[in-house]
């Protein structure tokens, strides 16, 4: 028996369990570190559950989830956290349980690497100093007065010498000050939504803006109606990684209710692990080709009498552009989708065989999938934004919608087609509870600005596309619409709002070059992230746990949160608004305009205006009862009101969740009325119908000035897509960069936030995923250090060899904080933006999922990330 144990144990070890070997001192127990408590693994743990005060706090990151969190606070120190225990947990009315990141948040907020003081880099001098030292200079602690003076003097100097047109700021409270100061150059980007940003709205597959929510949350049904589905197609949807919190659990209920799940994804995801009945490992960026093959199969095999696969009634009544008999007004009849599918004009039918060569799914399998989708009565066709974060993907959303139209899986219970994403993952519909307007008035920007949706139209204001930021700084020019370039001379970058711009934009290698050019760079930061590292002056700001909160409704449609201040600001950190006002005052601006509503007023406004859906599902009623005493406690002038729950209760619990049951009145079945009577209930499109032929979309895309598309969803090869991995497509000769690469949401981070938390680094090592077949021919073993090189940059990482990723494809989590080796020009931390290029197509989409690279074994071993020293500055200073 002993032997059996030993041998099993050895297998276990060599196979890769975490070896409990010699422990390196964890970064968070370094003497004198910021962490306001000492990690003592064994001795004191038994006191943790009983003492202290549980304060409801927010988890404020842009992950798409919103979960309940409470912090145990003793003497201004956070001892531990817990998640939702405000009500009993059932599948219909689930607790809003935090993911691993929320649960590690005290290690972030109170991490040893929290920035303590305002600081400037040592070689900085008015006008810039030696700018080449950005990123590697030493840091000098300075006073707030000195820091604010430096910033104000540089702002004044740049404005005087070059004008407001040379000041750049992408966001944050400081923008209010800069707007009052005469304005600044702005930035817009199309990074999250990909081509769904503009395409969804143009073709009609979006919801009318509900209340104060986003307009894309309503294009799929809610989680209760999803339980009526017989088949759920998850096209690039992996909530287990990209929407932690409740969504995957909600999908599990759909599976338990009997639905079959099909995953279409280059990776056998962790969502697939528990849900998938079938898997179609499509190549990244070829989804559009695959869906054309599906639709061609339907068209080819459909027989209304013997084998009805197509819902002609839906196509004829609710769409335009499918065939020449149903074209929108003024359109060329020969430019219909059916003829494109059949290859009438270009001689190439978009059949399953054609699609197979591109997307990597055998033709027979494509046909099986087509039949299954068409022959199943109740189907959810769900996709994330990921397949739309591809160069030249502007027609993909329209193609996805067209499959829904052909099969009629739209507008009925258990039948839906659209994006399952972010706060609306697996749970679409207008919010059931929402906060009131804070009352903070907007301050117009005279120099830059404009929302994403106005892009592509001639702009008088300066606003740089996100994927042209670095080239705009380097070349002094950016694209401002078709045939329209604009000059811009960025001299000062004010990166407020805790942005990590240098790590978050594609073409990062160019970013490292560009960041050395402006005269002055200042940022607000919690930590020395990539952006802070390359700034001249860094201003330490408080986290949301060190501030009073407002009502927060940017989670799933059923919840609203109110976080409270858990601890006093750490060290010398200050609120972003305090900094905005201090700088405003020094610039001689009216600070009452900058903070046009006080924090207390904003809280009162967001609380008194909060609404919750009535039980009958028709209309909203006030959420909160607010008493005279509440108003006095908040410290504002206002009038008491009656609502569903008391303000006090929300304060104490930190969360209100609308109870749900399978037969409640809060179902959401999008486009239901439209489907019943499209004439009486027209959409906002030009034709009032779902547009398979959409001139507005083609014009919308063309106006950006980068590329053009047809009004019907024709496939366009992505730049740096699969086809481009060959130097000769016919002979299938591979090019210098033969492997595809795409980046994913990774559980170590939300965006680039949390990347410094050692617990998360240990749990999720930022590995580089590669298939065994690709690894073998390159002599790469599991855990080996590899070097991945694209046209745009190089990273060093460790290989995670897995059959879960399809051959020819590689992947890595997005958002790692770079550790740039300037000499070798490589990033040891594996930031995916070092690999992705700053390529501009269509509506300015960040084409992160179209990228090519080569991988080779690298002869040295990489220290695991969680053993890297934390970026602790001024470590001998002890927190009082």
């Amino acid at each position, binding site marked *: 028996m002993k032997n*059996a*144990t030993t041998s099993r*144990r050895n297998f*276990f070890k060599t*196979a*890769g*369990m*975490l*070896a*409990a070997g*010699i*422990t390196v001192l*964890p*970064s968070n127990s370094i003497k004198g570190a910021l962490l306001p*408590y000492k*990690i*003592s*693994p064994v001795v004191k743990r038994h006191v*943790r*559950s*009983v003492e202290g005060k549980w304060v409801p706090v927010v988890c404020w990151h842009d992950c798409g989830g919103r979960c309940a969190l409470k912090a145990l606070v003793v003497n201004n120190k956070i001892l531990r956290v*817990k998640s939702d*225990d405000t009500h009993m947990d059932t599948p219909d009315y689930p607790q809003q*349980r*935090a*993911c691993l990141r929320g*649960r*590690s948040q005290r290690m972030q907020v109170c991490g040893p690497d929290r920035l303590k003081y305002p600081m400037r880099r040592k070689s900085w001098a008015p006008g810039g100093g030696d700018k080449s030292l950005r990123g590697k200079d*030493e840091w000098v*602690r300075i006073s707030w007065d000195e820091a604010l003076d430096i910033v104000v003097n540089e702002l004044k100097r740049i404005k005087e010498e070059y004008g407001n047109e040379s000041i750049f700021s992408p966001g944050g409270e400081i923008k209010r000050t800069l707007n009052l100061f005469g304005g600044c150059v702005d930035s817009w980007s199309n990074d999250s939504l990909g081509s769904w940003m503009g395409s969804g709205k143009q073709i009609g597959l979006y919801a009318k803006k509900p209340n104060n929510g986003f307009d894309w949350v309503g294009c799929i049904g809610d989680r209760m109606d999803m339980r009526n589905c017989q088949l759920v197609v998850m096209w690039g949807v992996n909530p*287990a990684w990209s929407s*932690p919190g409740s969504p*995957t*659990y909600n999908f*599990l209920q759909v599976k338990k209710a009997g639905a079959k799940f099909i995953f279409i994804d280059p990776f*056998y995801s962790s969502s697939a*692990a528990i849900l998938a009945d079938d*898997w179609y490992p499509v190549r990244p960026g070829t989804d559009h080709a695959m869906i054309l093959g599906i639709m061609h199969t339907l068209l080819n095999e459909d027989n209304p009498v013997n084998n009805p696969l197509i819902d002609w009634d839906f196509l004829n009544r609710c769409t335009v552009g499918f065939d020449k008999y149903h074209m929108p007004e003024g359109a060329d009849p020969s430019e219909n989708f059916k003829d494109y599918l059949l290859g009438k004009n270009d001689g190439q039918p978009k059949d399953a065989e054609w699609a197979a060569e591109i997307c990597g799914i*055998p033709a027979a399998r494509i046909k099986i999938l087509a039949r299954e989708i068409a022959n199943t009565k109740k189907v959810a066709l769900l996709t994330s934004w990921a397949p739309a974060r591809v160069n030249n993907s502007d027609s993909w959303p329209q193609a996805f919608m067209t499959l829904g139209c052909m099969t009629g899986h739209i507008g009925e219970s258990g039948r839906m087609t659209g994006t399952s994403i972010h706060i609306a993952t697996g749970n679409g519909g207008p919010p059931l509870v929402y906060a009131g307007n804070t009352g903070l008035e907007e301050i117009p920007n005279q120099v830059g600005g404009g929302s994403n949706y106005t892009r592509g139209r001639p702009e008088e204001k300066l606003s740089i596309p996100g994927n042209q930021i670095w080239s705009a700084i380097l070349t002094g020019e950016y694209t401002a619409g078709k045939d329209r370039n604009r000059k811009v001379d960025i001299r000062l970058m004010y990166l407020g709002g805790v942005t990590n711009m240098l790590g978050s934009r594609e073409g990062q290698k160019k970013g490292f070059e560009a960041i050395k050019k402006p005269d002055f760079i200042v940022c607000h930061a919690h930590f020395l992230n990539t952006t802070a590292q390359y700034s001249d002056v860094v201003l330490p700001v408080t986290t949301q746990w060190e501030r009073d909160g407002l009502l927060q409704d940017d989670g799933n449609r059923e919840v609203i949160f109110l976080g409270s201040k858990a601890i006093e600001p750490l060290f010398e950190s200050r609120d972003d608004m305090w900094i905005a006002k201090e700088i405003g005052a020094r610039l001689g601006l009216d600070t009452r305009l900058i903070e046009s509503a006080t924090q207390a007023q904003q809280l009162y406004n967001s609380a008194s205006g909060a609404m919750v859906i009535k039980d009958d599902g028709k209309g909203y009623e006030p959420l909160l009862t607010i008493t005279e005493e509440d108003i006095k406690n908040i410290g504002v002038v206002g009038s008491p009101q009656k609502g569903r729950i008391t303000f006090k209760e929300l304060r104490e619990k930190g969360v209100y969740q609308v109870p749900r049951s399978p037969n409640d009145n809060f179902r959401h079945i999008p486009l239901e009325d439209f489907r019943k009577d499209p004439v009486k209930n027209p959409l906002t499109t030009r034709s009032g119908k779902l547009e398979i032929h959409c001139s507005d979309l083609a014009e919308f895309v063309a106006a950006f000035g980068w590329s053009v598309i047809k009004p019907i969803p024709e496939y366009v090869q992505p730049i740096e897509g699969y086809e481009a991995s060959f130097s000769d497509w016919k002979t299938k000769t591979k090019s210098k960069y033969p492997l595809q690469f795409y980046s994913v949401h990774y*559980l170590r981070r939300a965006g680039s936030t949390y990347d410094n938390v*050692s*617990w998360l680094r*240990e749990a999720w*090592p930022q*590995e580089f995923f590669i*298939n065994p*077949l690709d690894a073998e021919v390159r002599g790469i073993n599991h855990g080996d*250090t590899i070097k991945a090189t694209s046209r745009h940059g190089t990273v060093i990482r460790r290989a*995670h060899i*897995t*059959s*879960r990723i*399809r051959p020819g494809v590689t992947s890595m989590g997005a958002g790692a904080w770079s550790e740039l080796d300037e000499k070798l020009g490589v990033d*040891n931390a594996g930031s995916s933006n070092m690999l992705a290029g700053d390529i501009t197509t269509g509506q300015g989409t960040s084409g992160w999922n179209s990228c090519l690279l080569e991988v080779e074994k690298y002869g040295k*071993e990489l*220290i*695991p990330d*969680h053993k*890297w020293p934390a*970026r602790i500055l001024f470590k001998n200073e002890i927190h009082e």
Partner: protein
Amino acid sequence: MNNKNQLGFYLDSGACIGCKACIIACKDKNDLPVNINWRRVIEYCGGSWNSEKGNFVPSGVYVYYLSVSCQHCESPPCLEACPSSAISKGDDGIVHIDQEKCIHDQSCLYACPYDAPQFGSDTARMSKCDMCADLRAIDKNPACVDACPLRALSWGKMDELREKYGNITAIDPLPDGSITSPSMILTPHRHTRLLSNGKGHVTDLPEKAPTEINGIGPNIIKQLK
């Protein structure tokens, strides 16, 4: 032998997404630094790819996860192995390490087939899961159980868990349950027998000691005192 009060964990492997929220909740609750993991998640993966008309098609690719801690075995080998008799089994079957008696020679670690006892050089003591004895004492669930976003973890008396969930205590790649009689009941992942068939691999990235660090690793900027 059979202790009616024996407590144990339950894991529905079919619902586990391997997110590691349980690990982090455990670390938070118990103040554990990196390298000490009272709970661990194993990724078990298998399958291959076949060439078919120039395309690659997957053949039985699967992945499942197992969240494991101390199994509070009915026959704990750690207890027998400890030279200083620091390890004992309570009335509720929970295996304890007496911190005062522990001489940190790591015998328990070498004896345990689940890697449950963890060695921390800064504390010079062995430590491991006690199923959140302090939380249970005030009628709360262990931290990992309440943390699971998929509700895949549970706990209770082993007799009750067996009645509710059956008596499977090991699936690949865990050691045969007959070796130590672990106090954990599993609902196997749907691919456990169908596809895995003992041919899968633990695919968590192994941690290697660095042998050479030139040019690799953090390039932390210089800093002032």
